[in-house]
């Protein structure tokens, strides 16, 4: 035998959340908000992105390059580019190509409005793992209401270009009180469009949603029907399209994460690194620290009593999520 242990017994299955980040030498997943600039101004945007909303101190090309070199050197297996709208970054394709050449699997999260046939062909050649398109509505009416400056037909056109090029497509859907009833149709539409996966969950009270919550917030009764439909659609599309959704409320999830932090770093456009999107805590700055240092800080930061306190405060005041953009440095 190679060793006493049987290898078959050595691979307990686990989700990232169940994998103790403390055991790992580097993150397994980095979600990089490449820029805060966006061509749309969505009612629910958790990042408060929009036209003219790029941070003044976003990573320079040199800083971004140094960051990506470290991602490759640390063999981070999975990364996503989001925003804002990541395709608006002037070096978007070069950065995507750099990572894919070095075997990091890359997902792009986009509104798809700027995806041309040529651009999608380039993404296929680069070898991105998937492009996730935000499609918050099964109809033009609801989509355009949610995605201010957005256009349902342009999003569909972008998806069609992706499919024609052979790029795997995923769909993301944020529910609100005026589109939540369309969830079944939205899953059907995703399948018709050739999506491999469909993602959704509860819309968060943060970012732009703080100002528009009175127009957005679904009732618990609506959420009940929403999740019921999703369970049915999961069964209906089993083996054909994966339907992923988080039924768990934010508080419940954060309490779980306190004890099981995911091996995931959230990197903001300026290189600051958050513990998790739904908390205001910053555990590093990639302009001044190496990825290795930030990873070590990340593991310590989850143990900081202020983190646990914030999560418990959410129990009595769920609207504290309105302050997620007031960063707290740990």
């Amino acid at each position: 035998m190679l060793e006493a242990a049987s290898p078959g017994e050595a691979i307990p299955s686990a989700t990232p959340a169940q994998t103790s980040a403390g055991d790992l030498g580097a993150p397994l997943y980095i979600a990089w908000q490449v820029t805060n600039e966006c061509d749309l101004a969505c009612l629910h945007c958790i990042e408060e992105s929009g036209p003219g909303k790029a941070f003044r101190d976003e990573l320079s090309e040199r800083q971004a390059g140094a960051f990506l070199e470290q991602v490759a050197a640390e063999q981070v297996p999975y990364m996503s580019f989001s925003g804002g709208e990541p395709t608006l970054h002037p070096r978007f394709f070069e950065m995507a190509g750099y990572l894919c050449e070095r075997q990091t699997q890359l997902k792009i999260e986009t509104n798809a409005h700027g995806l041309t046939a040529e651009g999608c062909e380039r993404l296929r050649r680069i070898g991105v793992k998937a492009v996730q398109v935000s499609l918050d509505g099964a109809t033009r009416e609801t989509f355009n209401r949610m995605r201010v400056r957005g256009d349902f037909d342009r999003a569909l056109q972008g998806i069609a270009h992706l499919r024609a090029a052979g790029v795997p497509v995923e769909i993301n859907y944020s529910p609100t009180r005026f589109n939540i009833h369309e969830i079944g149709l939205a899953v059907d539409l995703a399948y018709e469009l050739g999506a491999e996966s469909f993602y959704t969950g509860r819309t968060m009270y943060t970012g732009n949603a703080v100002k528009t919550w009175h127009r957005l917030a679904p009732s618990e009764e609506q959420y009940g029907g929403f999740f019921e439909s999703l369970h049915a659609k999961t069964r209906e599309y089993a083996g054909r399209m994966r339907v992923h959704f988080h039924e768990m409320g934010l508080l419940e999830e954060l309490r779980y994460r306190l004890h099981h932090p995911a091996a995931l770093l959230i990197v903001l456009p300026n290189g600051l690194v958050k513990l998790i999107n739904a908390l205001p805590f910053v555990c590093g700055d990639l302009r001044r620290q190496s990825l290795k240092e930030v990873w070590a800080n990340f593991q310590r930061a989850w143990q900081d009593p202020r983190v646990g306190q914030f999560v418990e405060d959410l129990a009595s005041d769920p609207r504290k999520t309105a302050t997620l953009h007031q960063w707290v440095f740990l």
Partner: protein
Amino acid sequence: MRLARYVKFREERFGGVLFETRSEKVFALNPTASAIVREIARDGSDESALVARLTDSYNGSRAAIATEVAAFVGDLRSRGLLED
């Protein structure tokens, strides 16, 4: 035989991890399992060649290694982590 398209392997102090990026599931590997996956990731080949390489690299009987590799490879296949 090779790691499935959406599966990434990384060595760790405790052994290694396999990350299936579509389902975002992580599988922790002990050093023994990691040694096998390292060989598969480095030079995908059939099971008998894999057993031969491991027998050359580690002390142990070929029969015992073959039994363990067969069980482990079967387990990886059943989880969709390997493809031909």
